[in-house]
């Protein structure tokens, strides 16, 4: 009877629960995982190398495509790094806009995570509800930048466009009459800020709805409580950040610990877990969405009273006003210089990081004085999380691997970059 051996199994890269292109080699002893070996690299696009060949501004669009569910946060780290080397001060208004969109991004990310995680475990309807709210936030993205996902919105020195004063509206069509269309448009009459505010007013109720569906549900609890437990010490040792670390009970959040932009003026709390299991991380993320809503509300209130500049008026790094550019020679020269050669950074190096929805997203930038980075290193939060998969999954059942992948909130764009 001794010739029973462990069974090696491929999980992914085409598996629907593998979140993208994760390939896991699982060593199974019956249903129990003995070891899990993640293979990465299937989505490698050489972003770091690519960035070395392009002027600084042209790389912003590629940052969106790293963690493609929290787009603007990635851009944020990149522009922060550039501003840091330049020692550039940006207008107050752009700081608020950036923080507001960072938090919108956090909600976007957590909603997708919640939907996908619940779907993996077997709760279908949460996914649909989460996407209902995501749709509204995507509309905010589109209204402000012009695309629903890959925004390319932040610029060194501020943001590329000011917040719009009108929201796009549903159009009359042959299926719906005027009343129905007007009902759909009820929160689109005002500006983008009004739209966001109406979203924030109803969002906490929506989170309650998700929580009613999941938090006490016995199936949900059976699938998440005690799965993938990480002790606080191990979480620190493994380099966890974000909700993964806070779920283990360590209160570490860059927004509080090294506040960037205007986070130090805002009021919000950092939720922490106690057990370090998947259920606690779920609770942490749910609470984070509520806190994000609070932050957005404060930013909205501030932005409503302000009429300042949205981008720095230093024409060496930010383009001059379009109307100016057509009238004045000097502006035109700045415009041409900026869009062809770009700008040169002083020699130096820096590390800039933001609290992205998944954890600490950092950019290490070295400049040799040219108009493109000498070296760009991306610190993706998902990478150390995935690296701990073996440790987290060992001893659990096969179906728990899906929970663990879900709770880690893996996105391959940033891991493989």
């Amino acid at each position, binding site marked *: 009877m001794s010739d029973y051996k462990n069974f090696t199994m491929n999980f992914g890269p085409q598996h629907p629960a593998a979140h993208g292109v994760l390939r896991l080699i699982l060593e199974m002893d019956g249903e129990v995982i003995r070891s899990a070996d993640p293979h990465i690299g299937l989505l490698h696009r050489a972003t770091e190398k690519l960035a070395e060949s*392009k002027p600084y*501004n*042209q*790389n*912003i*669009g*590629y940052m969106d*495509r790293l963690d493609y569910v929290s787009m603007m946060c990635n851009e944020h780290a990149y522009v922060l790094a550039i501003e840091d080397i330049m020692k550039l001060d940006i207008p107050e208004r752009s700081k608020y806009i950036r923080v507001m969109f960072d938090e919108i991004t956090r909600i976007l990310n957590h909603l997708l995570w919640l939907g996908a995680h619940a779907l993996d475990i077997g709760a279908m*309807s949460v996914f649909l509800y989460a996407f*209902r709210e995501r*749709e509204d936030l995507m*509309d905010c993205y*589109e*209204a*402000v*930048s*012009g*695309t629903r996902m*890959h925004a*390319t919105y932040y610029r060194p020195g501020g943001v*590329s*466009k000011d917040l*719009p*004063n*009108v*929201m*796009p*509206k*549903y*159009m009359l*069509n*042959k*299926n*719906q009459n005027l009343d129905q269309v007007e009902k759909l448009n009820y929160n*689109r009459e005002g500006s983008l800020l009004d739209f966001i505010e109406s979203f924030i007013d109803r969002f906490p109720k929506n989170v309650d*709805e998700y929580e*009613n*569906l*999941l938090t*006490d*549900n*016995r199936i949900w609890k059976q699938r998440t409580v005690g799965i993938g437990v990480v002790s606080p010490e191990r979480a620190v040792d493994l380099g966890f950040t974000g909700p993964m670390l806070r779920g283990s009970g360590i209160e570490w959040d860059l927004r509080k610990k090294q506040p960037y932009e205007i986070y130090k003026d805002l009021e919000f709390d950092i939720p922490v877990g106690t057990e370090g299991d998947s259920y606690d991380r779920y609770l942490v993320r749910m609470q984070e969405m509520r806190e994000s809503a609070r932050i957005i509300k404060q930013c909205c209130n501030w932005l409503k009273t302000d009429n300042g500049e949205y981008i720095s008026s230093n024409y060496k790094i930010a*383009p001059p006003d379009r109307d100016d*550019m*057509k009238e004045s020679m000097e502006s*035109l020269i700045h*415009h*041409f210089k900026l*869009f*062809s050669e770009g700008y040169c950074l002083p020699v130096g190096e820096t590390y800039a990081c933001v609290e992205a929805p998944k954890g600490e997203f950092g950019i290490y930038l070295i400049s040799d004085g040219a108009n493109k980075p000498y070296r760009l290193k991306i610190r993706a939060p998902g990478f150390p999380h995935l690296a701990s998969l073996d440790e987290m999954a060992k001893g659990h059942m096969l179906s728990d691997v899906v929970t663990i992948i879900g709770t880690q909130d893996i996105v391959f764009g940033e891991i493989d970059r």
Partner: protein
Amino acid sequence: MNKIIKFIKSLFFLEILKGLKITGQKLSKEPITIQYPEEKTPLSSRFRGLHALRKYPNGEERCIGCKLCEAVCPALAISIDTEERSDKTRRTTKYEIDLFKCIYCGFCEEACPVDAIVETGIFEYHFERRKDSVMNKLDLLKIGDMYEKEELKDRERNKL
């Protein structure tokens, strides 16, 4: 006492009923699904879709072949050749955008000093042959003609 409450709660599946109540309520609500293509979601005036080359109201093409868009394009999707015309102005002889390379970042629109290249709100398009993905100057001008009215409206709205 707590134990008894817990027992009763779990015996009668109270938390599951709570969840089912939410799904039940949705039964009577109007669906939020959009019946595309008859119904459409709102489209922002800043939307970055298919490219177009615009003309002046008198029919003269705007593009002066300054190649700023070519220089700023991060995906190297644009390629331009220029020549001097008989009236001594410079115009493009070749203007191509490879839509498979383009990442729709909108930098070309931002860079153009004469508002020639724009990204329109067109997002429903397809190619039938592989080489169709490379849009040449004629295609782009044609889209520009077609889309000029909407483009002007979008510009008005963007100024608000």
